[in-house]
């Protein structure tokens, strides 16, 4: 330790010693924590009160109708649909994740005309249309940071994050609501979409948590028409501390949407060191 460091250590300790500190308000702390546990999404709900227009950000997902034809036009669902969201399942995301039921489809590499609840971990060029109907929910990974005028700074588990307020629009006769939760550390967004209503978006966002021990299985993020290869995937996965198993000599193989199987699926929140297997779809 240098003289300067030694001096700093002594002076910081001396400076701290003269700070008057009362006893810890233990009862207040425990009581406040109990209240917070009962209302885990109070911060998120407060942020949602800010009415800001998202502009065209959410338009992309609907896109052209799926190959099997457009969804029939059912009645528009009630905004305040009281159906409880089945919140117990697996976590989607990475360091920042949300919980969705295990039954949801993982449509990372074979998306196209998804007709039910789905996690979409492909973004950019890859187009993943969802056939919206009441009760259909989706999580889509975003790679574009929400604009400063749109997103509000919040904390999740004490960690900084951004989120946009829930905005609802109509696509193909359906009311669809969405909001984005953005992790500034991993530069990755989770866009929560629901045709059920804004409350469902809030419920999913309320399950948000930060886990330093988790990373996201990558998808073909940022794919923009340049050939994305299995080697690119390996690099992205290994950069996150994952191990990749794929057939020998596959590095230059072009990643074909719908013809590549990844397990665990892109978007899954897993521990570093997890083995991710890539193989051609059957």
């Amino acid at each position, binding site marked *: 330790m240098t003289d*300067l460091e030694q001096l700093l*250590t002594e002076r910081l300790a*001396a*400076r*701290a*010693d003269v*700070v008057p500190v009362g006893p810890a308000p233990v009862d207040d702390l425990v009581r406040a*924590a109990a209240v917070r546990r009962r209302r885990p999404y109070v911060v998120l709900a407060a942020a949602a009160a800010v009415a800001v227009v998202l502009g065209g950000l959410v338009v992309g997902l609907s896109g052209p109708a799926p190959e099997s034809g457009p969804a029939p036009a059912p009645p528009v669902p009630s905004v305040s649909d009281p159906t409880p969201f089945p919140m117990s399942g697996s976590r989607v995301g990475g360091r920042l994740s949300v919980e969705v039921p295990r039954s949801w489809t993982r449509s990372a590499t074979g998306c196209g005309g998804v007709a039910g609840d789905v996690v979409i971990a492909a973004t950019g060029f890859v187009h993943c249309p969802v056939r919206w109907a009441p009760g259909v929910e989706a999580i889509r990974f975003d790679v574009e940071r929400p604009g400063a005028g749109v997103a509000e700074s919040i*904390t999740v588990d004490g960690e900084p994050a951004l989120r946009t307020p829930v905005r609802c629009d109509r696509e193909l006769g359906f009311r669809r609501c969405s909001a984005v939760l953005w992790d500034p550390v991993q530069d990755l967004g989770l866009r929560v979409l629901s045709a059920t209503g804004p409350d469902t978006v809030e419920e999913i966002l309320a399950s948000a948590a930060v886990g330093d021990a988790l990373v996201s299985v990558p998808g073909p993020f940022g794919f923009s028409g340049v050939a994305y290869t299995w080697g690119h995937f390996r690099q992205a996965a290994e950069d996150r501390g994952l191990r990749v198993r794929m057939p020998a000599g596959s590095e230059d193989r072009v990643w074909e949407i719908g013809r590549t199987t990844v397990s665990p699926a892109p978007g899954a929140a897993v521990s570093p060191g997890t083995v991710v297997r890539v193989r051609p779809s059957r």
Partner: protein
Amino acid sequence: MREQEVEEYAAARWPRLVRAAVLLGCTPHEAEDVVQSALVRCFVHWKRVRTADDRDAYVHRILVNTLADTHRRRSRSEMPAALVPDRPVPDGTGAVDDRDALDRSLARLTPEQRAVVVLRYYLHLSEQQAARALGVPPGTVKSRHSRALAALAADPSLVSWRSG
């Protein structure tokens, strides 16, 4: 059992966390508020704190982030003058001189550099622990640390303080 553990942790860490918050730039009153908010956040997810590899580093991280949130909120809601209070004129006693010199020197650092100095030299965290506490790579801590030390070494308040 859980409540007892939480209460014991709060009672044991409270003084040090409050003092760390003061060194990070809070008034004593603000420091108590910030530490209270940080501990509530920790207690809400106590299981995560308890199973963290380095429990204290985890709590320090929450503290640093809570402080940053508080400053962000304050910067939107208060007049700038409230953020840069004038320092009192030294009253001539050595202890107050030292304290003021240190406060002035710390105030000249960026918040990030200041956090590294406090974590390293007051909370005695290693570079790795500080990196975990700040949520940045160890290399970032290293560079902030070295810039902070360079700034402190060249600081006129600190120079007179060291030579006195």
